[in-house]
């Protein structure tokens, strides 16, 4: 019986379970249970006091009818779709330039542009700064009267627009620029690493076949780093869906807000039940976003 196959399987799982029990318990306690609590509170009228009455779907109905929620969601979704597009394309372009954009020197199949190792470090700078600092600094840069951008426009004879305090679309563009600026360095490094792992002989073969840079990128590099791109897309999408700190610090609250800022304001007003229900919707949205990207980006993995 000891050598029965079924027993051996059981024994194996018992072994694995023994190792996993503790981490799983911690995971359940500190990750799963807060989620469940939050989901529970989203069905109550909790206002921070000792009483939280169960009110069914009232919070969600209120959200459905709340224009401010839809306004904020619109901004969040635009950011989640467009910001990754800009950031990833820029990240990929810079990474490609760093790893294989240069002239072919010393008989090498690929090489980065001159000074590429320096650029690699520089691109990563924004990643080191705290988001709050980035928001404050860019807030000054976009300042209508005394900012760098409008100051520059002034010099060449243009009257700069009110970037942050005026139009919603201008503020959205400003947020998009800052968001992409602060994350692009991370993707440059990520994609450079992925591109660096591609064997050189594939490039050499492409070169021999007469492929130019563009063709090499689309036929060799991109398919081979596709998994990294997809992961990056999901990560950036979730970052953009959030973008809480940048919007909260940089943009005046009346111009535009993203859903997490709207959620935060509900907390501030003591509407904890309503705020958690917004949080639950955000959770569902980010999960849906990840699933969709996984689905549409799914293709056969190329082994090398």
């Amino acid at each position, binding site marked *: 019986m000891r050598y029965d196959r079924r027993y051996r399987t059981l024994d194996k799982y018992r072994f694995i379970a023994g190792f996993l029990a503790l981490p799983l318990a911690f995971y359940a306690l500190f990750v799963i249970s807060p989620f469940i609590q939050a989901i529970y509170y989203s069905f109550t*009228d909790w*206002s921070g*006091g*000792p*009483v939280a009455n169960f009110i069914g779907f*009232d919070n969600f109905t*209120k959200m459905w009818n*709340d224009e*401010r929620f839809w306004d904020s969601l619109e901004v969040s979704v635009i950011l989640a779709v467009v910001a990754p597009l800009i950031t990833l394309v820029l990240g990929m372009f810079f990474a490609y330039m760093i790893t294989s954009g240069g002239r072919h020197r010393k008989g090498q199949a690929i090489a980065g542009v001159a000074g590429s190792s320096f650029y690699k470090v520089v691109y990563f700078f924004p990643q080191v700064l705290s988001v709050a600092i980035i928001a404050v600094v860019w*807030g*000054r840069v976009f*300042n*209508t*009267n*005394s900012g760098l951008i409008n100051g520059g426009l002034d010099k060449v004879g243009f009257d700069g627009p*009110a*970037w*942050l*305090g*005026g139009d919603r679309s201008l503020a959205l563009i400003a947020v998009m620029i800052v968001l992409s600026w602060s994350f692009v360095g991370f993707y440059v490094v990520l994609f450079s690493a992925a591109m660096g792992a591609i064997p050189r002989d594939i490039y050499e073969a492409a070169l021999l076949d007469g492929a130019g840079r563009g063709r090499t990128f689309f036929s060799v590099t991109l398919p081979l780093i596709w998994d990294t791109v997809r992961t990056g897309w999901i990560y950036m999408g979730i970052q953009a869906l959030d973008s809480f700190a940048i919007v909260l*610090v*940089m943009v*005046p*609250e*009346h*111009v535009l807000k993203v859903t997490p800022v709207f959620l935060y*304001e509900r907390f501030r*007003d*003591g*509407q904890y*039940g*309503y705020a958690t229900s917004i949080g639950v919707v955000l959770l569902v949205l980010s999960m849906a976003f990840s699933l969709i990207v996984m689905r549409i980006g799914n293709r056969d993995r190329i082994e090398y």
Partner: protein
Amino acid sequence: MGSTSINRRDVMKRAAATSLLAVPAVGALSSCASGGGEENKAEKGEKSKKNPLGVKADAGLAVVVFNGGYGDKYAQFVTDMYKKRYPDSDAGQKSTTKIATQVQPKIVRGKPTADVINNSGADQMNPGKLVSNKQVADLTELLDAPSWDDPSVKVRDILEPAVEASGNFGGSGTFQAGISLTVYGTFYSKKLLEEGLDSAYPKTWDEMLAVCKKAKAKGIHGWSYPGGHPRYMFFSIYTMFAQRGGREITTAMDHLEPGAWKNDAVKDVFEAWEELVAKKYVLTGFDGTEAHTEMQTAWTKGGKCVFVPNGSWVENEAKDTTPKDFGMSFGPSPSLDSGDKMPFGTINAPAGEFYVVPEKAQNRQGGLEWLRAMYSKEAALNNFKELSALPVVKGAIDGQKMPHGVASVQAAIKTAGENVVIAKHMDWYNELFREDFNNMIAKFMLGQIGTKQAMDIMEKAGARILKDPDVVKVKKS
């Protein structure tokens, strides 16, 4: 009732049953911890001429003060006054930044440990909830008592009417005691207006437009406002609503009545401003979180505009950039025309920095007495010197050397007399002001929307808040 009809076992059973019942009822009780309360009898002493509130001389007094921008020294001054009069009271003061966290749980349980509380700061207790749960004392008894300085005058009569107006919650009774005044409205440079533009402060809207036109000819803007916090505009606009439509308009706004933002008075005021905006008399472009300082610097140091919406704190806030001969002055909002229901000179001046006395405080009378001491001339003067806050005690700072701006605000309060309006909805439904008015007026001041949309947005916002079950409504008496 024969005592024999109940035996020991029954008593135990009943006790067990009540404690079982009590557990789930805690939540329900805590939200209406009023009535009954024999177990927590307030200490009371003999009323006398010197002790009109009947304070028990040897009862302890616990004062809790918010330790914020004002600090707690000014309150210690009052606590010392109290201690001097009741040496056996062992009056003590505690300061904290976490008012609600430290004080509210005990109030909710019906056993407050504090007797008078400075309910202020980011962690303040929601005063509306305290009042509707009957957890704070009605201060009418204090207002009817003889004043600290002169036994022949009631406390009520030495205070600015704003104290009572700011302390009520829709119904009768005063539940929070403000100790200083904030005056909201229009501020300007006397020097720029009188010498630079050779004009007097405009009393009517036509005069206002004329001054702005004159300013434009000299290359400066008539108005400006902090674009990052456009809600400042409310400070100058609000009294115009009251002037045009009378108090019923502002009361309707406070109580979120349908049509409150959709009447001719509101329309006339918005149209007046729409014209001013359309004529490009407004200097815009101060955005970001520090917009108010940027704007104030452009106004004081740069002399780029004449009028700004602001509050009485601006003189202190902008003092580093204000030239000596600037002549900072407060000006009431102009009248639209002779059809106005309230006169030119009406001001928006609520009392602030509130204190409350828990309804079931152990030394409730002591808490009231402490406030009576706070409303003495001596304490008011000390507050003014220490905090440069405008006291709510009439005449307390007469004869004091005052900065130009404070002096002009003082004069405006005197001129206004009874014509003080207070935007209660700013407190009760803060969201309406901070979110909806802010969003609306931002677009309005940039000329992106007009009068009709402005009214629609505010009317809709009021209806939304009225429907929102998460917002406690203050009922109209």
